[in-house]
């Protein structure tokens, strides 16, 4: 039985307290109620640059840019659970989130080239990563392009990609509070995530590889 479970919630929206941040808050509320130690990070308030593609990390495994990203990734690597929220803009995740994910390249290097950052498969089974998203459009493929990026990130960071909440047709509902299930689902999934990690159970609702 694991006693402390740390959960990092990342909001990738440029808008404060919008639909996806409300989903994130519910997830973290559920996680807290289950005994999790939660922290919420708003990407748009952090100071960081996009990856410059210099590939300096290919030799060292260290990013030459010393800004808010590094400390945040250290924190995420030490956490048991990560939950990332982002609205869909132009059929993809926001620039803020994409920029943050691009910066994980040095961790990809450590994982796949240098072999200096290895989270064991056993650890990965228990560590959980979730994605919460909303989209204005009602197309059933509107979240599809987000998955390869999230999958890659969770893989690099050593989290099992678990089923989060995807709520589309926000334009039709007029916001997340009018959606019939999304906020309740977010609370429930956050709650179960922490309980599951405490019990050392792998998540059942995994995103297929």
């Amino acid at each position, binding site marked *: 039985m694991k006693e402390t479970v740390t959960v990092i919630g990342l909001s990738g929206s440029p808008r404060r307290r919008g639909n996806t941040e409300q989903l994130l808050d519910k997830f973290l509320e559920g996680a807290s109620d289950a005994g999790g130690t939660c922290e919420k990070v708003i990407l748009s308030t952090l100071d960081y640059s*996009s990856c410059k*593609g210099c590939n300096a990390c290919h030799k060292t495994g260290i990013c030459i840019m010393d800004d808010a990203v590094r400390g945040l990734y250290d924190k995420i690597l030490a956490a048991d659970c990560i939950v990332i929220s982002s609205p869909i*803009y132009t059929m993809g995740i926001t620039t803020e989130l994409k920029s943050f994910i691009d910066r994980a390249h040095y961790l990809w290097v450590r994982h796949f080239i240098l072999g200096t950052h290895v989270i064991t498969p056993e650890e990965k089974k228990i560590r959980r990563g979730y994605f919460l998203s909303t989209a204005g459009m009602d197309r059933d493929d509107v979240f599809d*392009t*987000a998955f*390869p990026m999230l999958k890659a990130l969770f893989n690099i960071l050593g989290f099992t990609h678990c089923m989060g909440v995807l709520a589309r047709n926000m334009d039709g509902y007029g916001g997340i509070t009018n959606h019939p299930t999304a906020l309740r689902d977010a609370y429930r999934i956050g709650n179960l995530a922490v309980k599951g990690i405490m019990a050392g159970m792998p998540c059942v609702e995994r995103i297929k590889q």
Partner: protein
Amino acid sequence: MNTIRVLAISASPRRHGNSETLLDWVLEEMRQDPAVNVTKVVLIEANVAPCRGCNACEKLNACINHDGMDILHDQIIMADCIILAAPIYCMSICAQAKALVDRAQVFRSRKYVLKLPVVPQERIGKRFGIFLSTAGQDWEYVFDAAIPVIKCFFNVIEVKNRDLSYVMIRHVDEKGAIKRHPTAHKEAASIARSVLTAMKERLS
């Protein structure tokens, strides 16, 4: 023959890297034609901030965020052909390119919310687009997640799907790797010629 206006945007944070080289090959071919007038924009020097998601453009028909996009907005409208070159980082276009794409929200609001024309009626169906991309990975599906984003971008700036061409080269990572690729240069030149031919037919 009227001038054919080509707007070429290099979105990579790396200067003269693989995707920009691909773009330069396309432009080199297009410039052979005296009717072509090329404007090349290097996005990292153009100062385009991400969209704030404020939705003000749905009412104002303009973006409240004033930066390099003020000029790019007009350049996008004026061009007959818009070329976007962007590398794939972590399974999609680099963040710099996504910032530009998201700032096209003002065009989306104009077209779908305010129901106003993005370009004059007589230019609809006469706009062309090219997406050039490179990826380090050799996976066949490495561009898949980028394509819907790109289609969406070109759709809101009034370039029809059928008038959108692609050159996407995978397995080129280190700077200069594309120069050793067996077909990339030929593909770039060939797409430049075919788009130019199509434009001349349509614009005449």
